[in-house]
C-alpha cells in the first residue's frame, strides 16, 4: 500500500518558537507580539450555535414544569450544574422544514430540517434557501474581527450519495448560507481550524511578515482584476460564481486589514492539533477547545458547530451504542431504541457541558467567556422519529454580557417560529433586524426571578 496522506502523531506540538506565538494561514495576518489585550476591555457578545442531528427524544428532553423550578430531565442532567446559566425554550417551530406544494412530492425531511433551521426559509432542491442567521451576524462582525464566522462540524462532508436524490447535499452538511445560493462549508479537521485561526508558519521576523502581507495584497489585487476582466464577457447568470470569488477576496482583504490594525492582540496558548482524534468524544472536545480559543482571542464572534451532519448514521460506540444514529431514531416506539437514542442525546449534552465549563473557566473582560456568550443548542427536528419540525429542543446558555438571565424553562405558544428567537439573539448581539425568515415577532426571554 502506498500512503500519501500524512498524519502527525497527536502529541506533536508546536514547540520551540513559543507556543503562544503562531502565525496565521496567510502569513503575517496576525501580529506576532502582544501587549495587553484591548479587546478584552469591551467584551463583545459572542454566539456559538451547536447543532445536533435527527432531533432529540422529546420525553427525555422537555421538562414538564415551566418556570424556574423546571425539573432536570435525563438529557438535561449533564447540564444540571449550569441550570442557572441556561434557558430551556419550548414551543419553537422550524416551520419551513415542512414539505411544501412546490416540492413536487419530492420531500427530503432531513434536508429541509437542516436547511430551514438557521435560515427560516424553505429550501429548494438544488440549493436555494436564504441567508442564515449566523451569516447575517457575520456580515456585521466581519468588519471588526479577522474571521467573519467559523463553521465547524464532526463529519466530513465528502461522502457523496448520502443525501436525497437531486437535493444539494449542502443542506445536510452545513447550517450556514452566505447568500441564498451559497452554502458555507464546514471544517472538521482540527488542524485546519487551528491553521485558519493561528497560522501555519514558524516565521516571527516582522520584516518577512510585512513582505508577505504586501505579496498577499498584490495577489488579491490581481485576482480581483482578473475576475473583473472575465466577468465582462459573461452573461449575468454566469457571473454568480465569480461574484462568490470576488466576495471571498474582499473577505480576505478585510482580514488582512484587521490584522494590521490589531497589532497588539494577545493570542491564547494552544497546542497545534494533529489529525482527527480517534474517538468522537476527543474530536468534539478539541473542536470545543478551538472554538473557545477563537472566541477568546476575538478572532471571530460567530461560530456554528454541527455535532453531526443531519441524518447522520454515526455509531456512538464509545457509549455502547452500536446502531447507526439516524435509522434508530425511527424507533417505532420500541423502548430499546428510544433508550439508545436517549443515551446519544445525553452524550451530546455532556459534550455541551464540557464546552460551557470551558467557557465559564476562561476569563474574559470583567467575567468569563460564558458571561459574554450566547450558546444556542438544539436541533432542526423535534421528534426525529416523525420528522416533526415542531416543539424543537432548544436551549440558550450564557449571559450575553448581562442581557440574559438563565435558570428557567420558558414555554412559548405552540408553533412560535424559532426565527423569533433568532431575532432576539441578534438583538442581543447588537444587530437589529425588523424581521428574519418567517419570524412573527421577538421572543421574551425574561422570566420572574
Amino acid at each position: 500500500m502506498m500512503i500519501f496522506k500524512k498524519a502527525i502523531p497527536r502529541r506533536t506540538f508546536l514547540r520551540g518558537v513559543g507556543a503562544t506565538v503562531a502565525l496565521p494561514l496567510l502569513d503575517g495576518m496576525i501580529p506576532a507580539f502582544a501587549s495587553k489585550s484591548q479587546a478584552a476591555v469591551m467584551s463583545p457578545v459572542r454566539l456559538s450555535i451547536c447543532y445536533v442531528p435527527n432531533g432529540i427524544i422529546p420525553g427525555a428532553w422537555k421538562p414538564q414544569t415551566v418556570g424556574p423550578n423546571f425539573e432536570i430531565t435525563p438529557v438535561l442532567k449533564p447540564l444540571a450544574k449550569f441550570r442557572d446559566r441556561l434557558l430551556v425554550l419550548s414551543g419553537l417551530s422550524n416551520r419551513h422544514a415542512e414539505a411544501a406544494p412546490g416540492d413536487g412530492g419530492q420531500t427530503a425531511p432531513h434536508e429541509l430540517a437542516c436547511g430551514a433551521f438557521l435560515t427560516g426559509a424553505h429550501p429548494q432542491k438544488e440549493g436555494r434557501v436564504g441567508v442564515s442567521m449566523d451569516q447575517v451576524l457575520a456580515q456585521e462582525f466581519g468588519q471588526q474581527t479577522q474571521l467573519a464566522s467559523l463553521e465547524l462540524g464532526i463529519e466530513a462532508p465528502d461522502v457523496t450519495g448520502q443525501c436525497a436524490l437531486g437535493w444539494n447535499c449542502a443542506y445536510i452538511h452545513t447550517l450556514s448560507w452566505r447568500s441564498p445560493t451559497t452554502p458555507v462549508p464546514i471544517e472538521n479537521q482540527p488542524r485546519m481550524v487551528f491553521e485558519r485561526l493561528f497560522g501555519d508558519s514558524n516565521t516571527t521576523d516582522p520584516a518577512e511578515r510585512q513582505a508577505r502581507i504586501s505579496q498577499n495584497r498584490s495577489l488579491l489585487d490581481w485576482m480581483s482584476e482578473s475576475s473583473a476582466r472575465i466577468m465582462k464577457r459573461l452573461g449575468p447568470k454566469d457571473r454568480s460564481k465569480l461574484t462568490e470569488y470576488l466576495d471571498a477576496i474582499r473577505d480576505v482583504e478585510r482580514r488582512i486589514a484587521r490584522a494590521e490594525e490589531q497589532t497588539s492582540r494577545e493570542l491564547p496558548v494552544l497546542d497545534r492539533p494533529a489529525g482527527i482524534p480517534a474517538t468522537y468524544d476527543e474530536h468534539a472536545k478539541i473542536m470545543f477547545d478551538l472554538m473557545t480559543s477563537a472566541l477568546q482571542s476575538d478572532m471571530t464572534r460567530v461560530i456554528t458547530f454541527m455535532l453531526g451532519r443531519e441524518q447522520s448514521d454515526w455509531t456512538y460506540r464509545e457509549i455502547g451504542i452500536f446502531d447507526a444514529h439516524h435509522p434508530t431514531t425511527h424507533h417505532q416506539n420500541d423502548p430499546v431504541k428510544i433508550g439508545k437514542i436517549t443515551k446519544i442525546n445525553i452524550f451530546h449534552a455532556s459534550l455541551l457541558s464540557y464546552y460551557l465549563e470551558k467557557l465559564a473557566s476562561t476569563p474574559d473582560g470583567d467575567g468569563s467567556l460564558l458571561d459574554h456568550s450566547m450558546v444556542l443548542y438544539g436541533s432542526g427536528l423535534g421528534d426525529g422519529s416523525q420528522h416533526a419540525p415542531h416543539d424543537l429542543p432548544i436551549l440558550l446558555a450564557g449571559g450575553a454580557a448581562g442581557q440574559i438571565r438563565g435558570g428557567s424553562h420558558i414555554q412559548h405558544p405552540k408553533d412560535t417560529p424559532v426565527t423569533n428567537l433568532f431575532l432576539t439573539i441578534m438583538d442581543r448581539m447588537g444587530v437589529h433586524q425588523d424581521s428574519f425568515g418567517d419570524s412573527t415577532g421577538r421572543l421574551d426571554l425574561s422570566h420572574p426571578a
Partner: protein
Amino acid sequence: MVGRILSWIGIVLAGAGTLPAAGIQTANLTPQTVSQYRAILDRYCVTCHNERLRTAELVLGAMDVGNVSEDAAVWEKVVRKLRTGAMPPAGMPRPDTATHDSFVTYLEAQLDRASAGNPNPGRTGVHRLNRAEYTNAIRDLLALEIDGGALLPPDESAYGFDNIAAVLSVSPLLLERYMTAARRISRRAIGDPDARPVFETYEIRKFLRQDDHMSEDLPFGSRGGIAIRHYFPLDGEYIIRIRLQKEARERIRGLHEPHQIDVRLDGERVTLFTIGSEDFGTPAPIFSLGTLVGDPEREKYERFADEDLEIRFSAKTGTRLVGISFVNQFVIPEGPLHYINGRPDYLPRLSLSDRIENRGGPPEVQTVAIGGPYDAKGLGETPSRNKVFVCRPVNNDDEEACVKRILSTLARRAYRRPFTDEDLEPLLSFYKAGQSDGGFEEGIRRALEAILVSPEFLFRIESDPANVALGTAYLISDIELASRLSFFLWSSIPDDELLDVAERGELRDPGVLEQQVGRMLRDRRSQALVSNFAAEWLGLRALAAAKPDQNVFSDFDENLRDAFRLETELFFENIMREDRSVLEFLDANYSFVNNRLAEHYQIPGVYGSHFRRVKLSDGTRGGLLGQGAILTATSYDNRTSPVTRGKWVLDNLLGTPPPPPPPNVPFLKEQGAGDKVLTMRERMEQHRADPACASCHKLMDPLGFALENFDGIGKWRTAEGGTPIDPSGVLPDGTTFQGPAELRKALLTKREGFVTIVTEKLLTYALGRWLEYYDAPAVREITREAAPNEHRWSSLILGIVQSTPFQRRRSQDP
C-alpha cells in the same frame, strides 16, 4: 383504510367510465394513429392523472399527443414511467406489451424528432475545479504530486457527484486555502534553497494488519511496513525514525524473538535493523493481560527498544520512494499449504482485541518520521524543475525572452487556452517583483503563484461567441471542447497534444476526436474515471467511511476494507481498459481477489497478497452485487439494511429511484400478540402493510431481501441467528426470483434500464450538471448507438463525447 379502498375502487370505476369508443380493446392490433395513442392515454393514464384527481400533480388530460414538443418535460416523465414499467401501477389495468411498446416508442420518436429539429444542449455555468481536479491539474502542470486532501476542503456534491458546477461554491475559507496552496506548491515546484529541517510523520492505520506483503513497492517476500512517497526538498542528509505498534501497556508487540527491519530508498537498501530477542532478561508471558510483567530491564527494553530505530542517510531532491518493511521470517512449509479456518497454518491471526491487549504476534510499524534536510548541498534536478524551467537565461539580454517562454508555457497549460500578450503583462510584474527580491527563480515562483490563484486556472469558463443569438444552441469552440474532454476523461487539464490539436482547429476533423478519445482512455490519467466517477457511482467513498461493528463483524479489518475497494476498482478498471460491455457490471462471472478477499468469499486456491482475476463459478457472486464494497457500503455498522440495498439496486442498476420517504413517518403497529421476536423480514413485511410506506418499500425491500445471503460485510451466510435466510425477492414489475444469482438474471432482462442509468450517470459526470428532460433524447441516442457494440465502454464514452449536450451549449437566455 376503508375509505382509501373505496376511493381506489372509485378511480377504477371512473376509468371504466371514460373508456373510449375506439376499438383499441382488441389487443393485438398495434395502434398507429394519433387518435389511437390519445385513446391509450385516456384509458390507462388519464384515469388518475386528470384535472380532478391531479395524481402526483400530473395532469395529462388536456395534453396534445400529436404535438409532444409542447410539453416535452411532461412527456419525458411519461416515457420514463412507461419505460421502467412503473406506470400504470400494479393492480391497475395495463395495456398489452405490443400496445405499450408502440405507444412509448411513438412518444420517444416524436420527442427525439422535436429535439433534433431544435436541440437544447443545456448550459453548464462557470465550473470551479474540485479538489480531485485541482490535484491532478497540479500533477500535470508541474509534475508534482500533492495531497489535495491536506490542502483543500472537501467539495459539496449533488446527484451523486462532487463535480457539479452549480453546487461547487467559493467561500473565504476556500480562497484562503487556494492562496496557501499556491504558495506551498510554487515553492515546492521551484524548490526552496533555504528549506529548513522539518519532520513529517506517516502513520499506519492501527487496524491494518501487517501480516503480509503490503505493497508492490516493498521488496518481494517482505512483511508489513509501509511504502511512502516522500518529498525531499534539497540534496542533503535526512533522518528516518521508526516507531512500532504497542499494546495497551505501551510495550512493543512481538519482541519475544528477533526481527529485521529493512529500510530502502528508491529500492536500494539503506540499512537493516534488528530488534527483539529471546534471551534478554525475563519477559512476561506473551499473552498476558497486563497483570504479569517481566523484570524491569526487560520491561524497559520492550517499551523503548524502537527508539534506536533511527538512521541518517543522504538523499537527492525530489519525491522518492521510502520503503520500510520486515524481512519475512515465517518459513513457508514445502508442499501444499495447510489451512486452519481458512488461514495458512503457519500464520496465526490475532483478533483485534488481542492486538490491543497482548504483546504476541509479529511486530508492526506504527509511524515513520522523515526529517531533514541536514547538511544541505543545494537544489538538485527534479521533474518539476525540469518541467518549469524550459530555458535558462544565459545573460541579461535573453532573460526576458526566457521568462516569457517559461510563463507562456505554464499559463497556456494552466489556463487551457492560447497564451496572449495581454496575459503576459501582469505575470511579468509578479516576476519582476520576485526577481528583485530573490533573483530569477524567485521571480518565476511569484508568477507561478499568481497563475495558481488566477480565476482562469481555478474555474472552467465557457463564454458565448459574440455572434450567437440568445437562447440558441451553438457548437462550443475546439479549445472549450478540449477542456471538456480532459476534465471528463482525466479529471485534469488537457495535455499539449490535445491543446495543439484544438488550437489548430482540427479537433473535430474526421476521425480526430475518436483518435484523441481513444488515446486519452488508454493513457494512465484515465484512472481518474476509476478514482472519481466509479468511486462516487459505486459508493467507494461511503466504504471508506463505513465502520463495521467488531462485535458483530469480527472478520472486518482495514485489510479487508482495502481489499473491497481494490476489488471494485480493478473490476471497473478491467471493464474500462478491456473495453467490455457495461452489462458485465451486472453479471460478470469473474472478479479480482487476493488471499484475504478469497478467504472472505470462500474461494479456494488463492495464495498471496496480490490481486488476480478469478472465475466465479458457483453463482453466489458475480457482477457488482457480489462485491464486498457495495454490500458493506449499503449496510449499517451492525446489520444489513435490505432497504438501503434495495434502494441502491433501484437507483444504480434498474434506474428507477424510489421517491424519498414521506415527511411524517408513521409508527408501525405494536408487535403482534405474544412476545415473538420478529425477524428483519417479518418486521419489514409489517412495515409494508401500511400503505403510506408500502408504495415505496414494496419496491425496495424485496430487492434487498434477495441479498440477505450476504451479511453486513458481504460474507455469504445461509442463516441469521439460527433462522434460515429466505432470499426470495420481487422486481418492481412483479417478477419473482430467489437469491442473488436469479436477481442478476432478472436484472439482465431489464438491461435497457441499466444501460440508461449508466449513461445518465456518465453524462451527468461528463457535463458537471444534472440532467434535464431535454437531455433525454441524447441519452436515448447514446444507448441506441451503443447497442450494436454490445454497450461496450468505449461506445458509451464516444457517444457522450459526440452528443449534443457535450458538443454544444445553449447561449444565454433572452
